[in-house]
């Protein structure tokens, strides 16, 4: 970071001096609002990552409660979705997936467990890499696809570009806007505003939140991922709350427009259709899951293979899973430290709940970065 070769432009949004100014502004805004806690929810694991990684939580004013919402696609991937991938892998089909999906526990096994038993599971960094891997062999290869609209667009683009005949997709892709409705309507929710994810909004456009804001009378601020982006987004949010203004503010204009990326949206909806489905620990989310349209049946692993889940489900799930409160944590009702398993029975190398698996998971982040301890200045 002290290296002179560092490019200044990248560091514009990492200027600690401006960070301190914004932190002071947050304090003044909280004072002006004059009550506590003021709860704001973000719905993106990358926001939590940045908050944790830069130690922002330790410098937030005490009155400001920034809650982690259901923003980790790996964490909300439901057990049966993991089970489908595990069953396919155990039946001898090659599976390619993102690194964070490997250790996500299914009902009885994770993909990592399947791999240890001899299944062929490879980690890829992008869908393109999975397609390349399929091209190199005759064997069937299933890309276990997870992620929100950001990565779903990449999957769609790969399919539109054409894939080899032995390639298919098992989609666990999710769509963010509907789950915000669910969380906003939860009776326990005390959320006064949503911080929306800048990269997802770059695709959907910030206009997608206008109806939401109207319906739920909760303001939304679209924010980027550099520490200054997050602090500035929170400052906009507190201004809206102070002035009792209910609207959408785009605090990430260098990437996000009202319309979003039309081409990406078109690709997304040509390949996928939204259907209702469970998000792990949250609820059934209408239109929250992205599945392949009928036109893409030939590359849809669910239609191409007979996936035998019954074989997996003859086992009972481990008992400690019943104590897991991932759902409440992702709904913003509980903190990781409220969970009896956190840091004792549930650890990164032996996760019980999905929030401990992904580097974007709330519990994993809190365990790694220490939540909000008092660390002096």
């Amino acid at each position, binding site marked *: *970071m*002290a*290296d002179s*070769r*560092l*490019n200044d432009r*990248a560091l514009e949004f*990492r200027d*600690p001096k401006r*960070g*301190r100014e914004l*932190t002071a502004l947050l304090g003044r805004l909280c004072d002006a609002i004059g009550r506590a806690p003021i709860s704001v929810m973000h719905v993106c*694991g*990358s926001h939590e*990552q940045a908050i*944790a*990684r*830069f*130690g*922002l*939580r*330790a*410098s937030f004013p005490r009155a400001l409660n920034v809650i982690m919402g259901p923003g980790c*696609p*790996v964490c909300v991937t439901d057990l049966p979705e993991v089970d489908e991938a595990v069953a396919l892998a155990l039946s001898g089909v090659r599976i390619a997936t*993102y*690194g*964070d*999906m*490997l250790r996500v526990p299914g009902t009885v096994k994770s993909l990592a467990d399947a791999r240890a038993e001899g299944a062929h599971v490879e*980690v*890829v*960094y992008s869908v393109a*890499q999975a397609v390349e891997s399929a091209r190199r062999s005759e064997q069937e290869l299933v890309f276990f696809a*997870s*992620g*929100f609209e*950001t*990565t779903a667009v990449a999957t769609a683009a790969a399919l539109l570009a054409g894939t080899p005949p032995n390639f298919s997709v098992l989609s666990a892709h999710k769509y963010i806007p509907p789950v915000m409705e669910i969380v906003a309507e939860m009776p326990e929710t005390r959320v006064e505003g949503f911080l929306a994810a800048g*990269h997802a909004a770059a695709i959907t456009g910030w206009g997608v939140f206008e109806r939401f804001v109207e319906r739920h009378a909760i303001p939304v601020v679209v924010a980027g991922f550099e*520490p200054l982006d997050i602090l500035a987004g929170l400052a906009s949010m507190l201004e809206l709350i102070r002035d009792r203004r209910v609207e959408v503010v785009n605090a990430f204009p260098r990437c996000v427009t009202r319309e979003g990326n039309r081409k990406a949206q078109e690709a997304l909806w040509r390949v996928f259709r939204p259907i209702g489905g469970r998000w792990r620990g949250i609820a059934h989310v209408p239109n929250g899951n992205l599945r392949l349209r009928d036109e893409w049946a030939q590359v849809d692993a669910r239609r191409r293979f007979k996936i035998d889940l019954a074989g997996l489900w003859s086992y009972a799930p481990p008992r400690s899973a019943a104590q897991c409160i991932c759902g409440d944590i992702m709904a913003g009702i509980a903190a990781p430290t409220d969970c009896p398993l956190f840091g004792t029975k549930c*650890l*990164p*190398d032996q996760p019980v709940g999905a929030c401990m698996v*992904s*580097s*974007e998971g709330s519990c994993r982040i809190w*365990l*790694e*970065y*220490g939540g909000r*301890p008092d*660390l*002096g*200045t």
Partner: protein
Amino acid sequence: MRALIKEIFVDRLDGVPGPGIGLSAMDDGAAIPLGDQWLVITTDSHVISPIFFPGGDIGRLAVAGTVNDLAMMGATEVLALTCAVVVEEGFARADLERVSESIEIACREANARILTGDTKVMGRGEIDGLVLNTTGVALARRVVPDSGLHPGDLIILTGTIGDHGLAVMARRHELALEGDLRSDVAPLNGLIRQALDAGADAVVAMKDPTRGGVASALCEMAQKAGVGIVLDGPSVPMNEAVRAAAELLGIDPLIVANEGKALIGVRAEAAQRVLLALKSHPLGRNAAIVGTCTAERPGRVVLDTGFGRRLLSEPEGEPLPRIC
């Protein structure tokens, strides 16, 4: 991992004659008194995929790894190295020659020699390509443990972080972002000699941040010494290519492996002197003071990011590229 090693091996096998440093210290190597000097000994098995990577290969790694473990104990003049080779049937002869040449070059840089060795061939599929084990012995007038930190001491990092781990990861996962990523794998005994000559007794602890990176090494140093460490994030040296790749992959460079860097704990009054000595060596050009030891929060490492503070914990498992 450390807990597992302790439970299975250390508790059962420990035992060191006299005042030496043995298995239970779980340091970079062992030391036994020999006349008015210390005999320092260390061993390391090297497996890496891929065997050839930008900036080095398994041969260079096997020499540097062991020479550096000796150097971290304060033993910079290598008496002898051993090298055991376990090779998979069918491993290409040309590749083996390339590895052997790397061993030779690295030995020359470290002013060390392989004095004895062993070769075993295993059947195809019984091991993955090539495994090297090297053992090193050296004499030292004074042993520097990794547990010698006190409140008030400063931590010097001898150069940029993350170079090795990211170069290997990029090659292993075939990520098209290698660009300027190059492993830093290098024998550090010459560099460490200069630091020890400049700092003498004021150099109180050393550790090379290999697997688990700077985060893991600092946590271990803090725990063993019972001090707190505050790491100043903005002063940690990092190459632009590493910063960009880590950012893209969502991996914290502080947990990425290095194979040519050292963390050196020094008494505050000697810090500038040691820093200058390091900077005058080609492998220490980017050296910087990056941390301070405190009496508060013993055993914990706090990272000051410039925006706020967070705890730095020991990473679990291998860092994997994440989704978005």
